[in-house]
């Protein structure tokens, strides 16, 4: 279970998160929406401590990550992350991208890691691209490798930061299809996205952020029919 308690984040003088508290229920899917610069990425990155909150606590499975830094990599191992720009290891093939953490973090043998990697790459439809380097893959394929790389760690939660923003519409659909398959299979999914229709389809809850704050966390149906905040209503109005 993931909990943020009174989390604030400042970069120099700029307040990027203002006293944010939220508890993510296990195995649910959350979509974070809001305008650009609202603090969505920063919120997501605070969960696995890629950003260290200025104040507040981040609790994952009852471990306070800020107090207990030694546990940080054990927790990161359990939380997968998918980035807008894929961030594949450029000098490794698709297969080795997935194998790397299995060997270094999970301490699997080379053979075992390879079996697992092939399994997850097959799951995202890339069984034919195992030995291709990132620069030989399309954007959609890169993102699917990145998803396989995170999934292979068998995480309890997945964080997606605008996973399709760098993709053209066709590739966007191929990646969204893969993410949909991950819905309600036992992981908590937290997805920052501008794909409103997609959010509506997959999310149990919508987290609406504006100006460094969470304005509301609302069940998806309700959010799209009756958003609680005025800002969310305006945001939705502008989307249509």
């Amino acid at each position: 279970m993931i909990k943020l308690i009174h989390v604030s984040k400042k970069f120099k003088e700029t307040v990027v998160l203002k006293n944010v508290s939220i508890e993510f229920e296990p195995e649910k899917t959350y979509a974070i929406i809001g305008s650009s610069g609202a603090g969505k990425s920063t919120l997501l990155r605070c969960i696995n401590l890629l950003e260290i909150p200025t104040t507040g606590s981040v609790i994952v499975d009852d471990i306070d990550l800020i107090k207990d830094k030694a546990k940080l990599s054990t927790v990161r191992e359990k939380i997968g992350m998918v980035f807008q720009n894929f961030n594949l290891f450029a000098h490794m093939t698709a297969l080795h991208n997935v194998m790397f953490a299995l060997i270094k973090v999970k301490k699997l043998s080379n053979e075992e890691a390879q079996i697992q990697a092939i399994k997850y790459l097959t799951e995202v439809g890339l069984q034919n691209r195992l030995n291709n380097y990132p620069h030989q893959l399309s954007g959609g394929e890169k993102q699917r490798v990145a998803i396989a790389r995170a999934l292979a760690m068998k995480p309890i939660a997945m964080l997606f930061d605008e996973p399709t923003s760098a993709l053209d519409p066709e590739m966007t659909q191929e990646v969204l299809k893969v993410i949909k398959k991950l819905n309600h299979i036992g992981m908590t999914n937290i997805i920052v996205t501008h794909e409103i229709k997609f959010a509506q389809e997959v999310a149990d809850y919508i987290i609406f952020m504006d100006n460094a704050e969470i304005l509301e966390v609302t069940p998806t149906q309700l959010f799209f029919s009756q958003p609680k905040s005025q800002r969310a209503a305006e945001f939705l109005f502008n989307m249509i």
Partner: protein
Amino acid sequence: MNINFDKIWPYLPQFGQGVLVTLQLAALSAIGGTILGFALSLGGRQGSPVKWLVKGFVDFFRGTPLLIQLAFFHFGLPQITGWIPDLMTSTLIVFSCNSGAYLSEILRAGIESIDKGQIEAAHALGVKSFDITINIILPQALRNVLPAIMNEFITLVKETSVVSIIGLSDVMRKTSLIASATYRYFEPYLITMIIYLTLNIILSFIGKKLEKALRYD
């Protein structure tokens, strides 16, 4: 035309001995310099005191002439320390430090050229910093700066010739001795130039092969 190699041929073994010294010096300094260069480039990424020490070291060895570093270390320092190192030891230390300083700057540029996203992705997977440095950062950094590193090695081979001035019997010093023994200058220096050129062409060739081997795009 006043060219006559007949007087030079008997000295061929001397050239050979000199080449061995030059090769030994260049190879050992390259190894020492590479190890030091790695250490310095990683040290330069640490916190305050280490970072400034590294910077001072690098600035010193890049900012003063190699010949003076050699003379200072071999003739100057013993006056203070009382320890008189043999010529080869002094030379190896100074050359390793000097090429280490240059290599660390090259490697630092290589490390900075790697996009931060990959490092973040590795952190997010729970990979430890040490493994990230060894398996993600260094292989890519090395690949990116390999041509510059080979350049530095070629410079190193050429620069080893200054040791002849302080009396180490490298190929350059042997050549000078052969020249004064035979009163022939054109021929011995021509031979020596060809020797350096050949060494560096071989180095370039190895560099190109390495570049190919490390290629992934």
